[in-house]
């Protein structure tokens, strides 16, 4: 069991909202002490001068493709990518083949995560059997096996009575329902309905397709008193729905993804299918609204929606390409540049959106750098400038438009219990 002293850095406390210089002494996978100039007797010294230490990130929405598409990603490869990106906890979505709708499959995923030993894996189970949107899945069994939330992500539960039942039943097991809000009649659309889709002749999907679905879910959540979480918010109209619901006291939370903070639909001019994602990239007005919503807390969390796709699924015409962007290794940097460097959020606030807030929504123990807590934290170099190249990708897939982009700020090491892993490009 390693005893390590992380010395000379500045520790970020997202819950308290503070950043202060401190050393962190870790032993046996737990934080022993946090303070100034700690005694390092018997400890391996890890030089953290010029670095920041923050609680490990929690990705409440990602796709690890196992079982079924192990060519695109596995739990192991996904956790490697996650760890490099600063994530100590990941929540893989159940839209695999077969879909994760039984306790056996939840257990399978938990075990795969333990075998890989890189991240704490908290599966999300299906709301309905086979994600068909008709019959309830075994929410109780899945909860017992370790799932932390339920979702039919990839699809919206179109039948309102079924969604109501899901919300009611999930309440028993204190499971938040993560909803992928998309009216199915607009599924043929490939681009946000706007000037760009008109210019490019691409089948449009209006922002209303997301907002209307969110509105229905919010009202049902209000009816049942259950906890609803709106996935990947992409537009101002949905922000509005969530804001009003919160004002009314509905137990709703929301997340967005780095690509909705950084890109707008101008990016698809040129038909590069790396920008094809669902929900689609929206207008600049929507992008600003989503950023502002993170600032004022209407959107609670940042999740990656890491969506690996094989080359043959992506390297094709825009409308035929599978939608999705991998994001575990770039999430921190993109968010840091767009939110912290542009003064939208302070560093503790930004880290909380990645760490304590998602943990809270999922009922996970709050990651903290404090005595007697699990040593799950990251070492950050905020001055780093780097590029994410295909060779850097630890995911089995490479589908991201951020290849070659200059990124600011970097996770240089992630500590999980007593394992310390450095991410390429410099030591901790």
């Amino acid at each position, binding site marked *: 069991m390693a005893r390590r002293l992380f010395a000379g850095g500045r520790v970020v406390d997202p819950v308290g909202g503070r950043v202060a210089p401190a050393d962190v002494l870790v032993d046996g996978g737990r934080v022993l002490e946090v303070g100034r100039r700690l005694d390092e007797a018997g400890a391996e010294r890890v030089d953290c001068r010029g670095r920041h230490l923050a609680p490990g990130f929690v990705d409440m929405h990602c796709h690890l493709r196992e079982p079924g598409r192990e060519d695109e990603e596995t739990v192991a490869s996904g956790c490697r990518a996650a760890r490099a990106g600063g994530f100590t906890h990941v929540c893989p979505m159940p839209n695999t083949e077969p879909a994760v709708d039984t306790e056996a499959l939840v257990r399978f995923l938990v075990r795969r995560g333990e075998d890989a030993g890189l991240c704490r894996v908290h599966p999300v189970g299906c709301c309905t059997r086979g994600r068909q949107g008709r019959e309830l899945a075994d929410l109780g069994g899945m909860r017992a096996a370790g799932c932390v939330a339920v979702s039919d992500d990839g699809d919206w539960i179109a039948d309102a009575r079924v969604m109501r039942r899901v919300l009611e039943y999930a309440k028993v097991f204190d499971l938040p329902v993560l909803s992928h809000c998309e009216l199915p009649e607009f599924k043929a659309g490939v681009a946000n309905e706007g*000037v760009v*889709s008109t210019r*490019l*002749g691409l089948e449009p999907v209006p922002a209303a397709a997301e907002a209307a679905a969110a509105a229905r879910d919010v009202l049902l959540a209000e009816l049942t008193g259950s906890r609803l979480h709106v996935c990947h918010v992409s537009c101002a109209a949905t922000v509005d729905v969530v804001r009003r619901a919160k004002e009314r006291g509905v137990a709703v939370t929301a997340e967005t993804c780095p690509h909705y903070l950084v890109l707008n639909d101008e990016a698809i001019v040129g*038909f590069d*299918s790396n920008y094809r994602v669902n929900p689609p990239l929206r207008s600049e007005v929507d992008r600003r609204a989503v950023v502002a919503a993170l600032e004022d807390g209407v959107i609670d969390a940042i999740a990656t929606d890491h969506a690996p796709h094989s080359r043959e699924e992506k390297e*094709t*015409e*825009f*409308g035929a390409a599978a939608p999705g962007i991998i994001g575990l290794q770039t999430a921190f940097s993109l968010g840091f540049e767009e939110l912290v460097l542009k003064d939208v959020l302070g560093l503790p606030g930004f880290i909380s959106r990645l760490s304590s807030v998602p943990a809270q929504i999922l009922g996970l123990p709050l990651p903290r750098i404090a005595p007697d807590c699990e040593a799950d934290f990251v070492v950050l170099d905020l001055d780093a400038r780097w590029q994410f190249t295909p060779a850097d990708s630890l995911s089995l897939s490479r589908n991201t438009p951020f290849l070659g982009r200059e990124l600011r700020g970097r996770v240089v090491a992630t500590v999980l219990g007593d394992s310390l892993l450095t991410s390429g490009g410099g030591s901790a």
Partner: protein
Amino acid sequence: MSFRHRHLLGIEGLSRDDILTVLDQARTFREVLDRPIPVVPALRGRTIVNLFFEPSTRTATSFNLAASRLSAQCVSFSRATSSVTKGESLLDTARNIEAMRADGIIIRHSQPGAPHFLSRRLRAFVVNAGDGPHEHPTQALLDAFTLREHFGDLAGRRILIVGDIAHSRVARSNILCFTRLGARVAVCGPPTLLPRYVEELGCSVFYRLDCILGEVDVVNMLRVQAERMTSASLPSLREYRQIYGLTRERLAGLGPSVVVIHPGPVNWAVEMDYDVADFPQSLVLNQVKNGVAVRMAVLYLLAGGREEADG
């Protein structure tokens, strides 16, 4: 005058000068087509492949003729006869064709951006013969050629495009091309077939044909497809004809200098009554004749020089 482009993917990437260069060259190729031997050796030894994933007789034939008149060899792959139907990816299909030393690929596809996709991955030059509802640049060029032949300059001319604008690549390319040549463009159709933000392309919008028909110099009718009825975009073809069709009554009321064009094929008695076929002010047959010359100009300008020309 110059044309420094490697591909023709759309009117979007063309300046006014580029367009005028193509039209100017098309004029010289019209003369070639009128010769006793309407063939020139300019593209001798080049191989041009027609890759048509959507059916088309007239466009494919027009390109075929254009290539042949330039002494290039033209080979056609159509959806019905190729492995495309077996699910071979677009990239694999194109790579296979390139391996056969094609110098240029003319592609028609149902997906916007398919020609752009190929242009980034192949050594051959790529001509967009229609990519879904996005663009059909050679149609716009031959329409502009036809109208300029009639009017001279298009500056200030009022051109009305009528029909299913939302799904029409001809509409998008024509709006861009005509406005770039200085014309004033308006579009007319039911709101269900007009995309939002279409004014941002540089045109004005009308929902009733009779409101605007009396004030234009050119009526550019578009084809309406029966599928639009099943997608709840149109109540019936009869209703469409009543409100948006160039009926014989409307035709009779057109001023003596107003001309009519249509990219073809025409749905007679839907968007136009058959009287238009005999209408002296219809330029539809001129469009067809000019198509080969314009496509010769395009192929010549793209293929004429060394392979590594920039753009």
